[in-house]
């Protein structure tokens, strides 16, 4: 029956479903652009989860006490789990996990630029949880209602855990901010280094963002970059004030009329540079992921060979 319909008709019915908030499922007809855009978006998100394990993994062996070590281990493990659900969601669209990972390693596929900044102190574990997971939640909560079923469902699970991470991160920061002068300085320094990169996580200004309109019509993006960034700023600034830390922005003011904070200009040169690969850790992060894949090749080959042997022995 599908064959008899023209492409225009199929596209019309597809958009009608989306407009009525009916979820698109893997076996439903979908325009090729929709499929490709989603594969790109979901695998980029999956890569961010996986690369994102590295900056925090950097502090697991140096966590300051047993409880913090366990909580950080569990957090990084959650991120690996998020990567798994997301690669699976991308696979429902016909993407191959290993191929998408190769695209990451070749530089063809992107991941969140925030992970190209180094983690220099224990307080960075607080700043990342609070700000980076916090910004990720702003981006991802609306995606729980996105038009593609498997992605929306993965996001529901992911968001629950991200909000847990955000609270844990904030708790680390609050604890440091109330601690010794050294601890407070450590917390402020982490905020200074991560504040602007966290704002950059929402992507370029709306005027510069090339994919937004089509993605909004398809409901795979539900708010613009600037809307989400503003929401993040409005939520986060009172939290910083609550624990006595200072946002590193001399232009920051609260506009009584709009009820929103107005913040200074983001350094877009820095943003584009890091996207292009010139951030402090871009090379390290990708080299590390490549090395893990190369070093593990013999293990994956062995697992395949073993499964194959067992299969043959069974059928023999």
């Amino acid at each position, binding site marked *: 029956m599908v064959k008899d319909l023209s492409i225009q008709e199929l596209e019309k019915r597809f958009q009608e479903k989306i407009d009525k908030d009916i979820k698109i499922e893997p076996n439903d007809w979908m325009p090729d652009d929709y499929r490709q855009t989603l594969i790109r978006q979901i695998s980029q998100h999956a890569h961010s989860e996986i690369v994102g394990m590295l900056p925090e993994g950097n502090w697991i062996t140096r966590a*300051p*006490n047993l409880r913090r070590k366990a909580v950080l*281990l569990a957090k990084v493990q959650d991120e*690996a789990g998020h990567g798994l659900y997301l690669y699976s969601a991308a696979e429902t669209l016909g993407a191959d996990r290993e191929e998408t990972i190769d695209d990451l390693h070749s530089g063809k596929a992107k991941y969140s630029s925030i992970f190209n900044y180094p983690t220099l102190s224990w307080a960075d574990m607080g700043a990342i949880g609070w700000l980076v997971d916090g910004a990720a939640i702003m981006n991802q909560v609306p995606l729980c209602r996105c038009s593609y079923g498997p992605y929306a469902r993965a996001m529901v699970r992911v968001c629950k855990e991200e909000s847990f991470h955000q609270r844990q991160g904030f708790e680390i920061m609050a604890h*440091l901010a109330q601690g010794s002068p050294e601890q407070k300085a450590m917390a402020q320094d982490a905020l200074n280094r991560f504040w602007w990169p966290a704002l950059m996580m929402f992507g370029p200004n709306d005027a510069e963002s090339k994919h937004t309109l089509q993605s909004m019509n398809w409901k795979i993006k539900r708010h613009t970059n600037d809307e989400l960034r503003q929401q993040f700023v409005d939520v986060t600034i009172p939290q910083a004030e609550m624990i006595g830390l200072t946002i590193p922005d001399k232009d920051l003011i609260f506009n009584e009329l709009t009820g929103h904070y107005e913040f200074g200009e983001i350094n877009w040169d820095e943003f584009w540079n890091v996207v292009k690969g010139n951030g402090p850790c871009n090379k390290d992060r990708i080299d590390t992921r490549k090395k893990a894949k190369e070093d*593990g090749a*013999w293990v994956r*080959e062995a697992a395949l060979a073993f499964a194959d042997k067992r299969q043959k022995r069974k059928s023999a």
Partner: protein
Amino acid sequence: MNKELFEYVIRIADDSLILGQRLSEWCGHGPILEEDIALTNIALDLIGQATNLFEYASQIEGGDRNADQLAFLRFDREYRNLLLVEQPNGDFGDTLMRQFLFDAFRKPFFERLIACTDLQISGIAEKSLKETKYHLKHSSEWVIRLGDGTEESHNRIQNSLDSLWRYTDELFFENQVDAVLLDDFNFPKLSEIKEDWLKNVELVLDEATLAVPDNNWQFKGGREGLHSEHLGKILAEMQFMQRAYPNMEW
């Protein structure tokens, strides 16, 4: 305080802590994502065990030091872990072989430790046994898979076994601590566990087509605080925050 009991608990705690620390070095570097998750899980279980045991050790000591101070602020000669668990991760096969040899000891050890007369230790042993059974299943499966996988994986994991074998006799090391406590607390007799351990290890190695090494030279010292060069570096990293920022809450 009961010095021997304190040391007995510290031994078990240190094994879990140091192996958990080692495994957590893998986080983000595993050969497949599923193994990143599995190794992290095991590390988490081990850190959890260590926490429970250090808390109890702190109680035995009379509360002079809390669990974190015991875990992070002793000197290397005061750690009582096995040499096996402080060995470097090496490749994935080295890590899994180290884990297997240890898990195969831990399971019969905890099984018997449950029957001890100290209720706290018995409770910790019961919880830890559940975790250990899963760890042993995971590590045995990988030893078999790598042993009976490709020629390369077979050779690699045989090498891992050959170089780790010399740390296995220490699993059953007994000293004055055991002599003093064994009867009063009904603690496991380690020499009796050895049979069980060897039987299970040989069964798995056989299925993995691996050969038990014939070099029987064995090292020991960990249980008396005499460690390899590796422990100092593990501690330098693990204790960094506590040493650099003394007397702070985190």
